[in-house]
């Protein structure tokens, strides 16, 4: 079983890396080639991603340790999936899907908007 602090650190690192990616001009260039619906979905994903980062940053690890351990496998899968998807941001749907999965798992650990 991974240490809770490592799970937390890996998750937060993956989320902040995702934030850097979606703020890049390369990502926006890919979105500009997509439909309006995809751009709206991407915009919402970006805002939700930032909300998740803020919520996790403010959370106290001792308060969320139980939930993190309970969702350990899903957390590791989501974190790894996000990291892999970000390796190729031209695959917009893969990136958006992995962001959504990560935020869903975060929502099981802390209360999101």
């Amino acid at each position: 079983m991974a240490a809770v602090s490592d799970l937390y650190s890996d998750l937060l690192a993956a989320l902040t890396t995702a934030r850097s990616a979606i703020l890049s001009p390369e990502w926006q260039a890919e979105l500009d080639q997509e439909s309006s619906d995809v751009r709206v979905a991407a915009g919402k994903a970006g805002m939700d991603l930032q909300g998740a980062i803020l919520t996790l940053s403010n959370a106290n690890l001792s308060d969320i340790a139980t939930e993190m351990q309970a969702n350990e496998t899903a957390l590791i899968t989501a974190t790894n999936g996000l990291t892999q998807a970000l390796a190729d941001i031209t695959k917009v749907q893969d990136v958006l899907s992995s962001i959504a999965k990560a935020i869903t798992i975060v929502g099981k650990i802390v209360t999101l908007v």
Partner: protein
Amino acid sequence: MLCWDSHFLVRPQFLYVSGRCGYHKNHLGCCPTKKVIRPGAIMGDKSSSCRDRHTSLRRVVCLSSLIVLALWGCDQERLDQYSAFATAGSLYVTSFHQLTTQAGTAMIAVDSVVLIRERPNVAPDLQKHPEQYSSRIVQHDKLLQEHLAVLKLLDAHATLLGSYFNAIAKLTDSKTATATSAGATDLLKSIDSMDGDVSKATLGGKTVADYATVGTAFVVAHFQVKALDDQLQLSSPIIDKALSLQEAAVAALAEEIKSSLTDTLANREVSDVINPYLSPHDLPGSWNTNREAYLRASVTLTTVNSAQTAIKQLHNSFKQLVENKSGPVDIQTLVKAVTDMAAYANAADATLKTSPSK
């Protein structure tokens, strides 16, 4: 240097004309000779045993005087160093306030960057469902306010520490020590009380206490000024913990600033430098100014770790001052470290908050 010489060398007032032993006044036992001597004359024909005893006694007295003066000098030098330490501590506190302000600004800035960047993407939906986006902004604001409250607590903690360092510097003066002792104790109680709240404060998912590393307990030396001595015996574990918490807080804040500002600065390069250059419109007159501001801010960010060096040095210097009455305390290194932190803080204030010129 005082040195109580024997009568047969230097001190004419110990020489008598009447044949009495000038050194021992009326005690002639060690000076069997009753030769008349002139004041100031060197006694050339004293018995060897008397001369040897005088020589040994003189050496002991001289050596003892030297040791007493050296110790008094060292103790005084150490007491003087408390003032230098307090001055460095004040500079650290000022720079720490700038650091917490930057951390708050950086967190707000990166959140705003995301909201601004996504606004055009969600524009068609924004008008249809404004309440969804309003709710997101309100939630982000609430989370940022919670974070700013943590930063404010850390600020107050640093301010108390700085005040305490100034108070103990005043305790080194035995004339004013008693009057300032009560004030120092009150500050100490406030710090002790606040240490608990600071320990539990959360940064980056961990409490500040989680970041802190626990060192070995201080062994407080004894100082001649009783008020200072009493105060340090009482305060050293509390101040040690407070400084450990400050080290932890600075480490967490530095990481936070780097993480937030990296994205903000990347966005700034795009919005202030690249996009205007690529735009079909005329390049704005402020383009070079904005470009320079972005570049300088990026370089400034690389020196944020100077804050960690400064607080670590402050902690080490306090330990040295308190534990070792006579050993060296590297105040110079401390002054350099807090000066470097201040330089970073001032540069960051100038460059990281700059909005693009039009």
